[in-house]
């Protein structure tokens, strides 16, 4: 009996630690990304960054590149010295598809979207306003859904409403808004874009800036242009605005 209880406790502890680790890197990541490959206690200094960048460049277009790229970005986030240049390297990864949208015959993206999500979260950890334009650029220009959602999610953590709100409102009205006409569930691109719209709306709610009200109102007033979840998110965001 005692053995069974102990076994149960061990299982629960293992499940808990796995869950905590997943939460740490966000729920956006694919379930099979090799998080456990890199030892948790590994800490690296700045001099490793050029090597990591070199390996990252070499991985582009190769078989199994996504796993390798994810591990490289995970290693970049493990650079612990202060000050560090790791954010410059992470920014390069984040903007890779936007700056050089090369496509291979086999894959739609040359850089793993999961690796970019991780890099976005790494950049957000800097709490540096300088990366706000980078995030906005991702939301506007990137073609993969996950990095766009991640970029929208981390914006409130970077602060500066003056830089963020006007641009998000503009994107919500144009690229992700009513301007695109009625929403069709079977239109995959539109569906993915609307998931990004939902993330933008949630961030606007977290920022609580009343300037977002007209754009949010437009979303709730035109339910045919969005998914139900997006409209609900707009109602919730409106409640959070700080008048």
């Amino acid at each position: 009996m005692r053995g069974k209880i102990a076994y149960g406790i061990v299982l629960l502890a293992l499940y808990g630690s796995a869950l905590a680790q997943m939460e740490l890197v966000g729920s956006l990541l694919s379930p099979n990304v090799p998080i456990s490959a890199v030892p948790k206690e590994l800490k690296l200094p700045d001099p490793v960054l050029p090597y990591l960048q070199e390996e990252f460049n070499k991985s582009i277009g190769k078989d199994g590149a996504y796993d390798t790229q994810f591990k490289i970005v995970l290693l970049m986030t493990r650079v612990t010295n202060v000050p560090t240049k790791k954010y410059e390297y992470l920014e390069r990864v984040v903007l890779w598809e936007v700056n050089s949208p090369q496509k291979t015959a086999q894959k739609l993206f040359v850089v793993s979207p999961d690796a970019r999500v991780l890099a976005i979260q790494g950049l957000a950890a800097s709490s540096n306003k300088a990366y706000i334009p980078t995030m906005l650029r991702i939301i506007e220009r990137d073609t993969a859904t996950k990095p766009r959602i991640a970029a929208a999610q981390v914006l409130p953590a970077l602060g500066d409403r003056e830089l963020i709100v006007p641009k998000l409102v503009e994107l919500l009205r144009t690229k992700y808004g009513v301007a695109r006409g009625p929403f069709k569930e079977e239109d995959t691109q539109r569906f993915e874009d609307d998931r990004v719209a939902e993330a933008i709306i949630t961030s606007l709610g977290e920022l609580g800036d009343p300037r977002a009200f007209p754009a949010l109102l437009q979303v709730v007033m035109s339910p045919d242009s969005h998914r139900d979840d997006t409209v609900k998110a707009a109602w919730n965001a409106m409640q959070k605005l700080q008048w």
Partner: protein
Amino acid sequence: MKRLLEAFIGICLLFSYGFCQNKERPKTIADLRIGSETEMETAMRILKLKGEYEKKRIVLPLIEKTIKDPTTFAFVKDLLLYYYQNPRYNEEDQVMYYDDVIAEELLKILGSTRSPEIFPVMLQYALYNKWHREATVQTAWRLMQSIEWK
């Protein structure tokens, strides 16, 4: 009588053939040397071969003893990066498997220096985990952690 003589000669031939087959296995680097090679040259030649696990085991202590020498250090790095990285690695292939066992031993020898210069090698082995045994990959991660950064 003639038959008996023929049988005796036959048995003698069989014995001598068997004796040739049971030639002693090499035990030291000297047994592996070709011509006027130095011990290090022999070790370098053997370690570049595919397979030959037993011979490689013989030369490893010499590598371990001289790893702090810049030439040996550079040679081991080169070996690990260009001779023991195997994109076609298959656990069931005995030659590949035992070559990877040697790769792990070489990693350990290189890792014993704890020099930052070994990072690219450890990184390669840690990142491309499908090219190696699990034990080799884990060794690479462990040795990466043990590097003494200045």
